């Protein structure tokens, strides 16, 4: 296949080369191809059939903020799009270069600039990979507490740009809770530096304006974030509740009683069955299966579950409704896993109180094993997507958020809307005093890529309609990118005009990540 040359002018590319040096810009077809996709399922589908999406004209690796400034000014002058890039782990096409231009890969901005042990703050370049930052903090006795399942393949700048949430968010908060100050380059080439301060009563909070803007308003180059002492102790607990209503009520009560488990996750019936299949440790997996009550039908599902995904291409397209019915017979409960970490005495008390609450609310105590197993396998679910795409099916996740009163209705409405089109399961996580997130995973298949894309779009449309009917948010932490951009006007209403006005002011040439976020 022929890869068309980029559209950026030679003059512009020569000028950018002068800024970064010839070793730090690539016009090579293979690099352009690699940066044409992130981890969104539509990109994977195209790749499956050997098709390429829109490509950047060049990939550029600036060394510092000053180089970013110069490149942005050049891009504005030449009206060439710039897409800020971390490590490309996004699942909504946030870094797909829809209109060409240059990918600005920020991974050379990967230094830890300052560790302030008194203030518990770290300042680092936006391009540092999350796990590298965490490992360095751990060596000094600290933790960032931010563990998205992409932590091995994502960057600090990416977390901020996409308003990321980690698996231990109930204790440590989300990235917007961790930010103290940041440095960013506007579309004009001006540098915005917000002071690293615990709070400021100065009108608009520009940190919060930029967080989640996915590179459409500015390019984040550096950030100062809160950190915590590395936990002295970690404890695990698991319970089985009769259903999602009872389980979510337990989470609500735990949060209301000011307990802060690091992770608190409730799996619906079907996810409870499948969550046990991701362990490398078959022995512990087996003991997990034996630990929860499973009916005769459950045993049947248990036996097919490891192979369930492999059969999707043959089965799910037409029979998703039947597969979804299996949950009625699969289990008699929903698994709740919790982890507690921090100072030993506090952790012990939290675990005791949470246990009392769960038991009072009808939860059956299953000890630490299932939660420990979740902990040991907490990133493994991401690997499943290889298997699904390998077999020609498509998998995606939908993470919505709402208040407690609407949480179970949201879960039920979305499932009802989607269940005829895809195999769907869910877990509840990222709990707050006032609500939580529902994280749906759906798998579907179609005979061709075009039809799979249509099926994927149809599922999302149905889910989003149900979500908006309930009054929930369609994204809790994956962001918008371009795959969800069509929902933005409905979500924001007239405030999209304000966002557009901000965009015009902060990026007058319209060069920053065009075509994203519904702008």
């Amino acid at each position: 296949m022929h890869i068309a040359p980029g559209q950026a002018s030679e003059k512009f590319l020569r000028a950018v080369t002068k800024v970064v040096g010839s070793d730090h810009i690539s016009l090579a077809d293979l690099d352009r191809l690699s940066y044409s996709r992130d981890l969104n399922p539509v990109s994977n589908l195209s790749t499956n059939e050997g098709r390429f999406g829109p490509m950047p004209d060049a990939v550029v690796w600036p060394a510092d903020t000053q180089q970013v400034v110069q490149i942005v000014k050049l891009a504005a002058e030449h009206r060439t799009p710039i897409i800020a890039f971390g490590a490309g782990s996004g699942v909504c096409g946030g870094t797909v270069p829809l209109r060409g231009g240059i990918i600005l890969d920020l991974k050379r901005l990967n230094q830890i600039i300052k560790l302030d042990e008194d203030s518990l703050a770290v300042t680092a370049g936006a391009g540092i990979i999350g796990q590298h930052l965490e490992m360095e903090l751990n060596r000094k006795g600290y933790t960032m507490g931010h563990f998205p399942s992409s932590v091995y393949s994502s960057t600090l700048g990416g977390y901020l740009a996409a308003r990321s949430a980690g698996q231990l968010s109930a204790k440590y908060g989300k990235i917007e809770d961790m930010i103290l100050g940041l440095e960013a380059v506007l579309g004009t080439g001006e540098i915005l530096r917000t002071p690293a301060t615990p709070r400021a009563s100065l009108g608009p909070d520009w940190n919060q304006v930029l967080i989640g803007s996915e590179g459409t308003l500015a390019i984040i180059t550096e950030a100062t974030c809160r950190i915590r002492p590395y936990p002295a102790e970690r404890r695990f607990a698991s319970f089985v509740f009769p259903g999602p209503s009872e389980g979510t009520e337990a989470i609500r009560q735990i949060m209301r009683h000011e307990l802060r488990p690091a992770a608190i996750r409730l799996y619906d019936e079907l996810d409870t069955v499948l969550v046990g299949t991701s362990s490398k440790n078959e022995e512990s997996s087996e003991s997990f299966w034996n630990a929860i009550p499973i009916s005769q039908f459950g045993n049947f599902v248990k036996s097919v579950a490891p192979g369930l995904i492999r059969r999707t291409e043959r089965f799910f397209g037409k029979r998703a409704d039947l597969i979804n019915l299996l949950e009625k017979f699969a289990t008699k409960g929903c698994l709740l896993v919790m982890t507690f970490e921090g100072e030993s005495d506090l952790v012990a008390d939290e675990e005791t109180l949470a246990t009392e609450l769960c038991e009072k609310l009808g939860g059956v105590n299953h000890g630490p094993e299932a939660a420990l197993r979740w902990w040991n396998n907490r990133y493994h679910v991401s690997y499943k997507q290889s298997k699904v795409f390998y077999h020609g099916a498509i998998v995606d996740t939908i993470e919505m958020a709402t208040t407690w009163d609407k949480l179970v209705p949201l879960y039920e409405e979305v499932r009802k809307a989607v269940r005829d089109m895809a195999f769907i399961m869910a877990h509840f996580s990222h709990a707050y005093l006032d609500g939580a997130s529902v994280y749906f995973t759906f798998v579907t298949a179609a005979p061709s890529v075009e039809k799979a894309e249509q099926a994927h779009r149809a599922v999302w449309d149905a889910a989003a309609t149900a979500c908006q009917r309930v009054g929930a948010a369609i994204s809790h932490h994956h962001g918008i990118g371009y795959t969800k951009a069509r929902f933005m006007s409905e979500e924001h209403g007239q405030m999209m005009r304000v966002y557009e006005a901000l965009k015009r002011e902060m990026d007058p040439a319209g060069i920053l990540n065009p075509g994203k976020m519904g702008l």
Partner: protein
Amino acid sequence: MLKKFHKEIEYGTYCPKLCRFACPVANATGNETQTPWGRMTLLHLVGEGALNWNREVSLSTYRCTTCMLCREYCDHEIEVPAVMLAAREKAVADRMQPQESAEFERFFSERHNPMGDDLAARLRTLLPSSLFNPDAQVVYFPGCVMIYNYPQTIKNTFRVLEAMDINYVACYDAEVPCCGVPLHDQGYQEAFAKNAQELGRKLSKAKVIITGCPSCAYTLKVQLPQAGVQLTDRIYHMTEFLAPLVAEGKLPIRRPYTKRLIYHDPCYLGRYLHVFDQPRQLLNEVCREPIEEFSWHRQKSYCCGGGGGIPVTNPVMARDIAQKRLVEVHEGEKKSLVTACPSCMRAFEKADDSVEVLDVVDVLARCI
């Protein structure tokens, strides 16, 4: 050549890149094409006919140190190096290998080693003739990198053995000085097989083979049989051979080693041959200070950049990888780096001449 890796390539194409942070090449370059995900995607697209198999694609497969750290973070336990090596074999067959690689192979073929020197003569000058015995049953195989770069470590090896009254180990005469792994890494399987045949004849009488080079140990033990050359089953790295003997108290320690040391696990000794404890046991026997560990250590040790033929085809990348590894050596109190692999030693020394780099055997020799 690549068809048998269909599943690996496909899984790698759709994976969530969870090995990305561990890949030394990906970290050194910051380039997504040069991640296992990126390289597998290119091979997938070639397989789909969407991309031509050309020199640019083949070059991407030479950007892997074969360190295998990626597998530690792969739930599917995919071995990326095996796929890259098969692709290199195809590149050679289709004459699409890097220029540096082709030149290297010509150089090697002319001189039967990658150093371009008469290594057998060097070895004869280095050691007394009494240590060479063509009929010996226990043979020390020094390997080309050790002979060329670290003759003192070879001398120290025999000093340590002598101090332990071990006089049954003879030195291999190095007429075929190289195990052939540099050819294997560059994709020259035919040349590797030929070298393996010659080596097999030279080592056919050995009942036990000991080497100070992990790549040699792995090649003699695993890759030669794959090329149809079966040597003795009893092939050991020097640290494996010495550790039980030193633990028995056979090494007369006259003075402890007093300087601070940090131990680097070579990829081929650790992840490939599963030897983690023995080097540490040996160091703990003679060192007064506790041995420091890198944050990436043992099964998850980080590469020195010296593997997979990277220094031949991508020397700047090799240097960058080594320098990343050395950051922790410069932190805190002054210390030396100790390892058990001449290729690692060379990679570190080339990257930063301010760091003292030692072999475990060098440390032992300083204590007798």
